[in-house]
Structures are given as C-alpha cells and as structure tokens.
C-alpha cells in the first residue's frame, strides 16, 4: 500500500531536487543558447563554488550563505577572464567551432578538478550553515529541508532574473542579437566581445553560486562535478535545445523521476530510468518535453 505521507515526501524531495538541478542547468543552457558552447566544465564550476563555500565560510562567521554573493562576483570575474580564450578557439578559421569549444572546456574541466585535488586534497568538506539546519515538518505532506527550499527558490529566481535581462533590457537584446547572427549584430554596432564575456561571466557566476548551495546540501569534493555535467546535458535535451524556460520543467521532471523511481521502483534503477527517459524522448520528441526546442 502506498503511504500518502511517503508519496508527499517523495514529491517534495523530487521538486526540491529539481530546483537544485535548475540552479545548474540555467547557466549551462545560457552558454549553449547564446554562445553556442557546450561547456563540459559546468560541473567543475559547481565543484569550485562548493569548495569556495567550504573554504571561505569559516572565515566569514561559519555561514555558507554569506559566501553566495562572493561566489557570484568571484566567478563572474573568472568567467570574464576565461571567455576570451574560449572565443579564440571557437572563432576565426577553425573548423567545427562547437567541437573546438567542447574540447577546450573538457580540458578546462580536467584542469579545474586536478587543481583542486592538488591544492586541497581528496577530502570531502562540509559547507557550514547555522541558518539553514534541519527541515520544516508539514503535517500530511512531509518535511521541507530548509536548505533545499532556499536552493530551489534561488534557482528559479535566477532563471527568471536572467530571462528578464535577456528579453527586457538592451544588454539582453544585444546578447540575443549575437546569438541570432554574429556578423549582423557586429554591423549594428554591438560589442560582441563585451557581451559574450558578460554572458559567460553570468553563467560561471550562477553555476558557482549553485555550487555553494549544493555544497550546503551535500558537501564539497573534488570529484563531485561530473554528475552535474551529466545532469546539465540531460536538462537541456529534456528542455528542448535552445529553449531556456524549459529548464524549469526539465529540472523538475528529472528530480521527480529520480525521487519517485528510487522510492517506488527501486533505487538501483534510478539511472536506468533517467537514461531511458532521455533515449525515448530523443526518439519520439527530439524538440524536448514542451516541443519548443530546436531540431534541424
């Protein structure tokens, strides 16, 4: 017999897990949609954000939440520095820019992971918080872990804020114009390099910020990034390639599928089910769950 409370808790878990994925997926979808980059380093920005939380939080009063704005600013700057190199290998007369970008970011990911492993060692580290401890019990539904609720809300807010920027501001219009046709945007006076750097900086900042939250929820470890890279790939396929709002739906679907499969089908089958969903979707609905993604 299905327990109502367990079902409620599983749905809560799934939705909040989906919120965590949204915090990672939004930036990944951004660089894919705007810069035409499949950034294999997305998970490593998560890892670096989590590590920043673990290292800096004790210095700022033992509260990981204080690291959130610092991580955004720090990794926005990191992104601004990295992007010109990425631009260099994906433009000019180089063949297959998408692949060049992917190989570059793959190397970047290995460099990031190796650097953290070398500097900080292999240990798992806690990102402390005194504010978001435990969960809020809601009778008849389940327990809402405070840190996961905040993470999910931040993830959705980040996406909404970025959508606003993209569709309601001059800067966002410029970025969309670059995405539409780089040469024409340049002819229209858009500073291509500047806006691409901003976009990549926002992506790195958002993803590292998500990493701080993920560190608060789980912990920080040098090897944690790869699974988030995999989930980011899943999410943009489910969302529909190039369709940013779909990230919320795909994140929530992934989270729910994972949670309900683990509880009602069997934990060992979770990834079988998730991969199965992706394969089936690619076969029958390649434009994504909402049917709004790009298909050639």
């Amino acid at each position, binding site marked *: 017999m299905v327990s109502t409370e367990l079902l409620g808790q599983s749905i809560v878990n799934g939705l909040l897990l989906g919120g965590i994925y949204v915090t990672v997926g939004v930036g990944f979808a951004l660089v894919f949609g705007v810069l035409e980059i499949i950034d294999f380093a997305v998970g490593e920005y998560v890892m670096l954000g989590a590590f920043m939380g673990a290292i800096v939080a004790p210095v700022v009063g033992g509260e990981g939440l204080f690291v959130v704005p610092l991580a955004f600013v720090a990794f926005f700057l990191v992104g601004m520095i990295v992007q010109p190199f990425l631009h260099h290998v994906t433009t000019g007369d180089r063949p297959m820019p998408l692949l060049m970008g992917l190989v570059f970011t*793959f190397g970047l990911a290995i460099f990031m992971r190796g650097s953290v492993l070398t500097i900080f060692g292999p240990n798992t580290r806690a990102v402390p918080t005194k504010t978001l401890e435990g969960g809020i019990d809601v009778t008849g539904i389940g327990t809402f872990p405070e840190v996961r609720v905040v993470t999910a809300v931040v993830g959705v807010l980040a996406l909404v804020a970025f959508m606003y920027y993209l569709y309601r501001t001059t800067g966002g219009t410029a970025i969309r114009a670059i995405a539409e046709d780089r040469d024409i945007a340049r002819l229209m006076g858009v500073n291509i390099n500047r806006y691409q750097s901003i976009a990549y900086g926002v992506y790195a900042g958002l993803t590292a910020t998500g990493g701080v939250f993920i560190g608060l929820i789980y912990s920080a470890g040098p*090897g944690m990034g790869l699974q988030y890279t995999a989930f980011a790939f899943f999410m943009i396929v489910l969302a529909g390639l190039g369709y940013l709002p779909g990230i919320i739906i795909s994140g929530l679907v992934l989270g729910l599928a994972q949670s309900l499969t683990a509880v009602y089908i069997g934990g060992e089958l979770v990834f079988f089910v998730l991969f199965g969903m992706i394969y089936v979707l690619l076969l029958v609905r390649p434009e994504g769950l909402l049917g709004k993604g790009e298909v050639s």
Partner: protein
Amino acid sequence: MRENIKTVKNRRQFMKAAGLAGTVGVAGVAGCVGGGSDRGGDKFKFGVVTSLSGDLRFGGEVTRRGYDLWKKTVNENGGIDIDGSSYEVELSYADAKSDPSTGADAASRMISSERVDAVLGPYSSNVTLAVAPIMEKNRTPHISGSAESPRIWEQQFKHTFGTVPTVTLIAQRAAEEILSLDPAAESVYVSGVNGPFSKATASAMRDAAENKGVEVLAYDLNPSDTDWTNVVSSAKSQDPDLHFHGGHIGSHVSLLKAADQLNYDPDGFFNHYGVNTSSFKEGLGDGARGTFGATVWMPDLERSGGKLFGSAADYAEAARAEYDSDPDYTQAASSAAGVVYQQALEELGAAPPLSDTQKSKLVEIIEGASVETFYGDVTFDKEGEFYHNNTSTSPLPIQLQDDNKAVVVGSADSASPANYPVEE
C-alpha cells in the same frame, strides 16, 4: 510564443559534440604514473595499482600513504635483507582512476613494461576483481592492503592476497555488537550503494540483524550518486531503531546530511568504512558525532607488534610525522602488506629481479606465512570461502564521540561506554 535563441545549432551537432567528448574522455582514462621500463638488479620493484583519481581517490590516497610509508621505512632501515645483502624497495604507481578496466590495463602494463617483482593491490574491491585475473595470468604475487569484498576470495585467486579481513566478517561482527547495545534494537533499516564492496557490507549487516532476531525493515541499494533523501524518506516512514549503511565515505556523508535535513533521527547510524577518517569528519562537521563504524585496527590498540614498525602506537607516530594525520586501518593494512612481502622475500632469499619461478615460490611462502606486525598477526586462509584473505585480525565496533574522536565500543575489554541511543 517561441523563445528560441538560436537557429543554427541543432541536435545533430550537439550529439556529435557530446560523442567527441566521450571519445576524448575514454582516451584520457588509461594512464600509468610509473616511470620507465629499465630494470636494474639493485632494488625490489613493486607495482602499485590504486585509485589516485576518480570517485575513490580518497581511499586510493590512503593506500598510497600506507605503501609509501612502508617503502620509506624499509629503505631507511637498510632495505630488504637477502642473505646479508640489502636491497632497497622501489614503488611504481599506476592510476586505476577508480575504474576496473583502467586498473586491469594498468596492471598489464605494469607487468609487461615495468617488469615488477610483485604488486601491491588497489583500494577498491571492484578494481581488485579486475586486476586479480591479470595477476593469475602472469603468475605475479599480489597483496591488497584494502580490498574487502568477499567476492575476491570466493574466486580462489592463487596469486592474490588481502591483509584486511573481508567485509563479511568486519561488518557482521561489528553490527552484531552494535545490535547488542542496551536497549536492544528491535528493528533496523539497511541501505547501501550498489557495488561489490558496499553491497557485501549491507548484506553482512542484514545477516547480522537476522542472526540477532532483529526485524530488517528494508534492504535498499542505490547508485553511489543518488540523492539520499529518497532513502531517508523511506526509512523515516518506517521508523527503525537503527540505520545501517554500506558504502564509501561520500555516500555516508550524503546519507547523514539528508537525514539531518529531513529530521530523521534513529537511535544510531552504523556506517562501516571511513567513519574514522578526516574526510568523513570534515564532510559532516559536527554532524559526524555519534556515528558508529567498524575497524580492525586503531593506533591505541594492543597488537602483537613486530617487524619494521614495532607497536601500533609506533606506526601511528611514524604516520603522523609523515602525513600530519592519524592513520586508519586501511593505511595500516597497506603498510602491513608491505611488511608481509618483506618477510616473505627474506625467506625466499632471492635477489631482484625475480624470475617467474621465484615469483611462484614467493606466492607459496606468503600463503604459509605468519607475520607479526604492528597491525596484528597476518596469516592467510589456505582454503574455503575466504581463500587468501587474512581473517585473523579481529574487527571492532567504534563510535565517534567527543571532538569526533573514535573509541572502541561494545564488549571488548578496551571498550568505552557507547553513546546510545545517540544523544546530540
């Protein structure tokens, strides 16, 4: 309204790029860390295949510390004595990258290119299971200072030995002790990671509960990267007295964090491996306190002492001086594996490099050896389900208490009172 941003890119491009990434990844997977293939006769050369990167890099690093400390100490003491002549020890590392097939490839190269005399084994059971057949094929002695899965010993590999008792023994005996604490538990929830070591651990925990007549509410295996809130939700809904979990450190930390977030509070958590490591304690901070674990060795235990390091305390002091942290039982067992080789080589009396015949003779000597070490007496079973596993070292339940310091609990003479039911 469609809000698509780009029209040029398409799914085909995306999949092509992803495929290339996979190819690059696979190409980057295999890799020897060791040096060249020149082989002089002035040193014993040991190959080490362990996980220096990947998910299990923490454990791999622990084994490396154990092997390195043995090498350093034996060389500082003049090397291995062969009929009055001393031969230093050289270690050549290969990174298994936490992947069995990579470990097997590395082991093959280690033997064919590096021409090692013997091999010190991987951290994980998965990789050990892949490496052991390579050792059989090449008739090369192989001692693991870490692997605990019973599946290794069930395979009856002639050339593979292990200094850590199989997890079937460690987890089961420790679990039985924890289940005997007062007030006696009436129910237990068993979870674990779906891998050879972790599954064997969880299975042994379940067996212990069943042997004690304690109700097993669930036996719940999951992938290592799962979100453990799902397991915690299921467990919480069944309200067990105790929660047992078989896995590695990462899953322990994630499980206990999820338990804290969902206000899940059984009388105690028992996680077999890694509770007494810095990674577990740093990963959980104050949340680690009260967790039960199991060990076969701790620095303050009375053990026979013996060759090279002296007592357990002496070994711990040497380890702290070298690495500035307390050694755990895996590190100790890894060093003990080296000590076993040292004694066996001295008995063999053959200078390096060893011939195939001498390697076979070395295997026979190891099989019959009884080695007194800081880790305890090491002897290997000569037959049965634990063939070539050292089952003579006694497992003990431990608990993290004040300042997250691990103490022995249970019925042993040296045991401290358990904090049970665990109070924060």
